[in-house]
């Protein structure tokens, strides 16, 4: 009995290694996820893109992911585990993986890495991100049109440039409609915490905000806005089912085309380290359908989207005046340059709040 069990075990192990061999000629592509995949939010969108990748190139690649990898001391090991499992192209999908990815990249020069939203690169490590501020600008236009109280509520995650530039883009857009528009900002200091996000939404509504926007992941704020009869924008994913009468639009992360492009380059042997910062024109993100608004506002949003996509409208068009009343240096000709947006560390005039850490 014992012998047959052992034989069975050996057989199973062998079977496992045989299937590993047949998979060996496929390109192995690995993913590191920040959260559990769930059914919406940041990680979910990355996994949707992975699924799109499998659908497109499934006969040539094999994908593996590690979910819920904290952005701490464990990340380096998780990334290295993927390398050791034979993955040749690895997407690390959160900012906090920057240094760990770089460390592993330096150790394995023959493996290629793609790091989302960071700024450190290596000959075998690319970075990619999306110009979400373009979407925020469109949201700002809609919000100013739809707000009756003239007060917008903004749930911030962390006061990092990506989030700060989103707030600025929103308010700059809103000011073109209502010059004296106000925005209340609450820092949740988290990317995902439904309890905190719900509390923030309640506090914002209590302070008079009637359009809620968020840079956090959960649909909690959408649900609160829905309960209180206010309006809101989703984030990362389609959130309309949490507020059928509430969601105006949502910035959707659509990484699929980028992932497919990069894997194709890897397969063709043309992969090179680069920095991709794509906007609406390169489909790095998309806007959910414009809902719960009059046709006139919808048209305004669509026109802005078309203009931004065509490069005719820049959200950070000069002159831009900082909170201190002084004009911001215009390094990009008639708009701020990418460096200024990527490192944005100031509020524009009209935001009656103080940027944390300033």
């Amino acid at each position: 009995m014992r012998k047959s069990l052992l034989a069975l075990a050996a057989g199973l192990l062998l079977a496992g290694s045989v299937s590993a061999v047949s998979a060996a000629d496929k390109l192995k592509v690995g993913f590191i996820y920040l959260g559990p995949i769930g059914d919406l939010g940041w990680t979910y969108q990355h996994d949707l893109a992975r699924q799109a990748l499998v659908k497109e190139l499934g006969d040539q690649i094999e994908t593996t992911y590690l979910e819920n990898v904290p952005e701490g001391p464990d990340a380096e090991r998780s990334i290295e585990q993927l390398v050791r499992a034979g993955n040749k192209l690895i997407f690390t999908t959160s900012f906090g993986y920057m240094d760990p990815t770089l460390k592993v990249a330096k150790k394995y020069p023959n493996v290629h890495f793609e790091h989302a939203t960071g700024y450190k690169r290596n000959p075998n490590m690319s970075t990619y991100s999306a110009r979400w501020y373009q979407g925020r600008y469109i949201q700002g236009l809609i919000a100013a049109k739809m707000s009756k109280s003239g007060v917008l509520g903004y749930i911030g995650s962390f006061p990092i440039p990506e989030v700060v530039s989103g707030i600025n883009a929103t308010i700059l857009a809103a000011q073109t409609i209502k010059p004296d528009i106000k925005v209340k900002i609450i820092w949740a200091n988290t990317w995902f915490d439904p309890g905190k996000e719900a509390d923030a939404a309640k506090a914002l509504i209590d302070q008079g905000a009637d359009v809620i926007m968020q840079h956090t992941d959960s649909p909690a704020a959408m649900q609160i806005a829905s309960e209180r009869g206010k309006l809101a924008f989703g984030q990362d994913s389609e959130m309309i089912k949490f507020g059928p009468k509430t969601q105006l639009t949502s910035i959707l992360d659509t990484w699929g085309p980028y992932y497919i492009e990069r894997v194709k380059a890897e397969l063709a042997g043309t992969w090179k380290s680069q920095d991709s910062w794509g906007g609406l024109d390169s489909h790095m993100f998309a806007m959910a359908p414009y809902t719960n608004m009059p046709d006139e506002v919808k048209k305004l949003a669509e026109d802005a989207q078309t203009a931004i996509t065509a490069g005719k409208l820049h959200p950070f068009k000069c002159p831009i005046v900082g909170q201190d009343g002084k004009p911001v240096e215009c390094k990009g000709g008639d708009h701020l340059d990418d460096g200024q947006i990527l490192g944005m560390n100031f509020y524009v005039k009209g935001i009656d709040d103080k940027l944390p850490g300033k």
Partner: protein
Amino acid sequence: MQLVLEKRAERSGTIALVSPLIAIGLTVVTMVILFAILGKNPLLALHAYFIAPLTDGYSLQEIAVKATPLVMIAIGLSLCYLANAWNIGAEGQFLIGAVAGSWIAVKTQGTDAGAWVLPAMLVLAAAAGALYALIPAICKVKFGASEILTSLMLVYVADLFLDYLVRGPWRDPNGFNFPTTAEFDPVATVPLLIEGGRLHLGSIIALLVVAAAAILLGRTIKGFEIRVVGAAPRAARFGGFNANQLIILTFAISGALAGLAGIIEVAGPVGHLQPGISPGYGFTAIIVAFLGRLNPLGILIAGLFLALTFIGGEQAQIAMKIPLDVTKVFQGILLFYVLACDSLILYRFKLSFPNRQVASGTH
């Protein structure tokens, strides 16, 4: 009919030793069933969990790296728990140690400070951890405040303090406003033991800590006092042992070890100070301490075992596409069985029939 737990008159020494093994055995059986339900090959899955990580040098290193902070913190906690002092706030002491040590690293950054930097960081971190742990200890001794609550609440204070520092004064000026300090200089970094690997000096320190704790508990009067105060408080009082003094002492040691673990983690595997440096080490170490039966050697084994489940869980995710949640279920089941088996050492089930007549009437 009632099922009650009745205390056993005597407990078997053999069973006390075998009980963790029974628990692991039961866990394995449960996991086999679970894997089968998930449609995964149980043998391959168990192989990925338990055997594969032990078969190559890389994974062994990673197990040691993962176990290092857990073991160091758990050793300190075990001293507290043996002395009946309930330090739940090791996570906070870990963070404060990391902050205090990082202070030197941040202040000497870019200067030509020499080899004294790292030792100074370690000493300061241990001191800060100890001082931070003394707050709940003194509140307990002087005012009778529950150390469970105060030490736990101080975790959040430490967490927010660290958060403030890396978002404000210590933020990397070239870091695009992201909440992290700059990478520490080489003199402020824990040296690696193997070139190109991740095993670092901290693992050696952890082993020394285990040895020191074994000597303290097994060969010194202080160690004897700690055990007696916890096991037989009245006897200890008659023996003239000062329980309050021991609360202070064990909290200080435990805080120092947690603080040391904190700076080793930051100056070692992480390389800079940032929020989220601990994935809950201070709390997981509580599990390690009890899994190791508050015994230094046991804690070392328990720490390595828990680390193995982390690494193995990750490899199972990669090799077998087993979801991470299963690893967590696995750890939960393990703890459940350990506690269940422990209870059965001390207690036994007994059926009692308080209202026999009524009961028989209804049947």
